[in-house]
């Protein structure tokens, strides 16, 4: 399932030298801004009004201002930053959900993004059906999901509930199911956004053990507010502040810099 995906505004010639193949993700000079409507400019009426009055109807808000970094294959990278610093936007650009305004993102390999757990989950469907649906969203075929199915159910500890509709699950069970799909889905690159804190203490311990086992084998990008997780799991970390990289490198130093933001 290897594929090379190019998400860019400027097409580059696909040069894959051997030095480059060790790089899983390369982000260069990525900019992104959003046009936020000043007044509700959703309807036709408002659009016409704004046009007539010469109002633009939006203010431009720069979220990312030139982000550069690389992730090597097998590296566990942490991304930290305050709320609104641009972490999630960056993650969405990496996942191909947003298009960068300027700059280039190169992905080598199959990227499995978890911006949110349980994307496409439907409460009217059973646990089993939801696993396959969620798998399809992430790009896995039924045959591939067949292989992962037992492992997912076992990790989620929900084998007795797979034929129940999702609406009859407790919220903890729903999250456990979603999380198990997330970590069992086999992609070359795993992207996780603030999803570590799920389930009860025992389940969290299990997740932590799993993450520890991924170190050095799986390429992971983890966005989190927990400096404990950064120190424990990450090989390298990035601190983003106001759309720019403020600090990059050793997880310990980055975690300190993050904690220093409030001092």
């Amino acid at each position, binding site marked *: 399932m290897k594929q090379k995906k190019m998400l860019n505004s400027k097409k580059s010639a696909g040069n894959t030298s051997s030095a480059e193949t060790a790089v899983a993700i390369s982000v260069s000079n990525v900019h992104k801004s959003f046009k936020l409507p000043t007044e509700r400019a959703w309807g036709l009426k408002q659009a016409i009004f704004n046009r007539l009055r010469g109002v633009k109807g939006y203010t431009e808000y720069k979220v990312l201002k030139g982000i550069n970094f690389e992730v090597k294959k097998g590296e566990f990278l942490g991304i930290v930053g305050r709320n609104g610093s641009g972490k999630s936007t960056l993650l*969405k650009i990496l996942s*191909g959900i947003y298009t960068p305004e300027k700059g280039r993102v190169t992905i080598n390999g199959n990227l499995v993004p978890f911006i949110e757990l349980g994307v*496409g989950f439907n409460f009217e469907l059973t646990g089993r059906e939801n696993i*396959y649906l969620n798998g399809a969203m992430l790009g896995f075929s039924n045959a591939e999901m067949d292989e992962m199915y037992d492992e997912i159910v076992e990790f989620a500890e929900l084998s007795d509930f797979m034929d129940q509709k999702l609406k009859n699950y407790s919220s903890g069970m729903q999250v456990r199911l979603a999380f198990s799909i997330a970590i069992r889905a086999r992609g070359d690159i795993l992207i996780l956004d603030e999803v570590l804190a799920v389930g009860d203490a025992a389940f969290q311990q299990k997740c932590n053990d799993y993450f520890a086992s991924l170190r050095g084998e799986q390429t992971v990008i983890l966005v989190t507010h927990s400096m404990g997780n950064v120190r424990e799991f990450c090989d390298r970390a990035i601190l983003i502040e106001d759309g720019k990289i403020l600090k990059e490198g050793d997880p310990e130093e980055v975690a300190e810099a993050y904690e220093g933001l409030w001092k």
Partner: protein
Amino acid sequence: MKMPKILNHRNRVLLKELTKTDFKLRYQGSVLGYLWALLKPLMLFAILYFVFTQVFRFGDGIPHYAVYLLTGVVLWNFFMESTNQGIQAIVGRGDLIRKISFPKWIVVVSATATALINFAINLGVIIIFALLNGIMPNLGWLIVLVFVAELYLLSLGLAMLLGAINVKFRDISSIWEVLMQAVFYMIPIIYPISFVMEKNVLLAKILMLNPIAQVVQDVRYWLVTKEAVRTWDLIHNFGLRIIPLVFVIVVLVVASIYFRKRSKYFAEEI
């Protein structure tokens, strides 16, 4: 979007799963379940049959009028359902589009595919009615598929175009619903086109330039009775004859260009 990549493995899986889920959810929680997909058109047909053969006798001159009428109604319902669902598709699947990257046309195609499945069931019911009515099966029935494809492509093009506009201007879906009410009466579905021809031939010709009217009459011609008046029979200028087809192609081309341009920004605009 390179040609061989459009229907790659992942897109096929996603399309299948989304369509399956749509269809599954539609009849979930009802006692009769999927049977409703069949019962609904049957009951609708019974009502229409009674109204238009006992009360308004529009079709006295037309052979197999009941089947003739049902064919028109079913084609119209298919067009309505696929465009309405398709226009809502992108906004309706906003939760997905904001959280995962996939080709956005899949949600539109999946919404219209659900309508297509319903149409296939309806068509089956029509064929049963046609046989009961004494219409002999013939090879001409296969030609019907060509016109169904034409109607589907028109619906898909409109759904993609209007669905993409609907992301920014939510008024579109309301405008479309009202507009469709008007268009319904411009198509000879519940009245025969001969009614219009008797009063004003030019008007009848203009009405028959509508691709939906063209498809409805062509399907009736091949499936029910050779007495159905087609665009082809009414208009003799070749340039004018192909207007409905040209319209469909123009809609498809404009829709795909616009959709490709806008779909990059759906995630941030929804």
